[in-house]
């Protein structure tokens, strides 16, 4: 591995982790599409800031663009509060407008400089190693790496400092308010973090793919874990894996690094979606098949219990009528009755099925839930 390759992977990993951390809260708070809105509309801030500052990696530019992100959030809220459009429509109205202004500004006035429309969508990760940070005449590494490391540190600090508040505001905004944490402050804090992260990541991967890195790794982690802390850790790890593997795929095929990273997040999500223990599609299907038999047994017991001692019991609880009453195929009914009998839940009196005391207890428990 050459030094630029290592630097690119370091930057990509920093971007991935920085995005995954606030992304976890976005998906839990059902605000995933806010990342889409913010990552697009910061373009106006970047364009205007760039005309003033003329340096894409300047912290000042990051700040001015992040402000645009927060502005987007407030505009969406303002528009929703007029009750003339719903929130989803408000998002769909605000960010395309801001993004359009940004694109027009850039393509009209900045075409000849280092910011163009391709960079907006693709990012410039491949060129990041060329933009060096030189302090006192010493080259200490690419600027982008320092910028992303700074943003990553900021995100970590924010989440560590307000972990309790974020958790509470995410899972029970009402309680958080009652305990004196302002949900609004937490909300805007998080939105500021998302905006700053989006600006930093924008430089590396472009505006749409920020969304992939913010949403896909947390959504993937969400399929395998329940705890917030492990969600944060797992999604960071998945983010890094996607970043690094994405880089090498891009390297091998000579295609866009950012696009390849986003594709990898998708690959990981689908793989997890299919194969995750417990919540994966495969294990759900297997479990359903197993549970179908167990559930059918319980259903049989409940059915017998409900009709015990009632008129019509000899019809309802008759072996030959199970198919009719429970919509079971004859061999399935036979299998289930056999299984229940082996377990000692039922006994037979000719073709009439009788509950044992144990079976009765199981039925009662099943219904109390």
């Amino acid at each position, binding site marked *: 591995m050459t030094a630029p390759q290592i630097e690119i992977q370091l930057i990509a990993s920093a971007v991935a982790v920085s995005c995954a951390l606030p992304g976890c809260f976005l998906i839990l708070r059902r605000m995933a599409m806010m990342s889409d809105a913010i990552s697009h509309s910061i373009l106006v801030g970047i364009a205007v800031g760039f005309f003033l500052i003329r340096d894409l990696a300047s912290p000042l530019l990051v700040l001015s663009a992040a402000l645009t992100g927060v502005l987007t959030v407030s505009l969406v809220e303002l528009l929703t509060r007029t009750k003339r459009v719903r929130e989803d429509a408000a998002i769909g109205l605000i960010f395309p407008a801001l993004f359009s202004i940004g694109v027009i500004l850039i393509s009209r006035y900045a075409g000849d400089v280092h910011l163009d429309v391709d960079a907006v969508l693709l990012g410039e990760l491949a060129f990041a190693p060329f933009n060096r940070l030189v302090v006192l005449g010493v080259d200490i590494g690419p600027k982008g790496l320092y910028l992303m490391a700074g943003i990553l540190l900021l995100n970590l600090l924010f989440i560590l400092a307000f972990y309790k508040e974020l958790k509470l505001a995410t899972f029970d905004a009402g309680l958080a308010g009652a305990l004196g944490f302002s949900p609004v402050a937490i909300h805007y804090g998080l939105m500021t973090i998302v905006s700053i992260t989006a600006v930093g990541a924008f430089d590396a991967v472009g505006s749409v793919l920020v969304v992939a890195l913010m949403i896909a790794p947390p959504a993937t982690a969400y399929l395998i874990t329940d705890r917030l802390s492990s969600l944060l850790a797992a999604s960071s790890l998945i983010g890094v894996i996607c970043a690094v593997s994405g880089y090498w795929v891009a390297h091998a095929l000579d295609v866009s690094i950012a696009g390849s990273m986003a594709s990898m997040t998708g690959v990981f999500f689908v793989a997890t979606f299919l194969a995750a223990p417990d919540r994966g599609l495969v294990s759900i299907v297997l479990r359903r098949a197993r549970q179908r038999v167990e559930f059918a047994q319980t*259903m049989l017991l409940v*059915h017998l219990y*409900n009709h015990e001692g009632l008129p019509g019991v000899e019809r309802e609880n008759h072996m030959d009528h199970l198919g009719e009453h429970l919509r079971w195929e004859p061999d399935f009914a036979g299998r289930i009755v056999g299984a229940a009998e082996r377990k000692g839940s039922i006994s037979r009196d000719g073709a009439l099925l009788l509950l044992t005391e144990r079976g009765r207890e199981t039925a009662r428990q099943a219904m109390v839930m």
Partner: protein
Amino acid sequence: MTGPRGMAGAESAIRVEDLTVAYGEKPVLWDVDMAVPPGVLMAVIGPNGAGKTTLIKAIMGLVRPVAGYVSIFGKPYLSQRRLVGYVPQRNSVDWDFPTSVLDVVMMGRYGVLGWFGRPGRAERKAAMEALTKVGMADLAGRQISQLSGGQQQRVFLARALVQDARVYLMDEPFQGVDATTERAIVTLLKEMRSEGKTVLVVHHDLQTVPEYFDWVTLLNVRCVASGPVEKAFIDRNLRLTYGGRVSYLTHHAAEETFGHPEE
């Protein structure tokens, strides 16, 4: 426990047999049996999460049951669909939808109109008649977002009326309506009964059950009891349904009105 089987024969308006419904892996209705004779007003009561709405939706096939059958006047639901009218919960739709009161009521005729029929004068007339019945004729041209909760509920009822069904399933029609509307709905229900319609109503207010309804089903995942109010709406069944929490509410009503709990 009051078993429905002894009371209703094949002529039941609604007959539910061994109905079990599960969402994912969690059962919400366990082996429910119920038979509603024609021409009664039946309340379905039970605590939150008892599966009342699910019962209605399962009767219509809106949720697929794991087991069990539903028949309307002795035939499978699918072939009898025209005979069934439905009043969903008021908050199940977006009342800011750009349409008028009359338009919503005419939707009740869409089933009869079929695929390419367009609502015309006959539908308009039927809709206006139904609106008059619920006291909303003046508001026919009104945009639906300008209605109060009670008025919204009346619109839904009018829409069900134009369906001209024989069996009605109503999900919480009394939810959040004003006293005037509540009285109007009760009058309407009784009128429907006198026309021989069968109405199944998901209901919340235990106090008004004996006054408004003549049959009742007590539901808590399983069917605790189902039958005429004076037999089924008793303290013991209520306790079984609500887990004892509710006895103070209904104690007097049940004990004094209906004597001792059935054994």
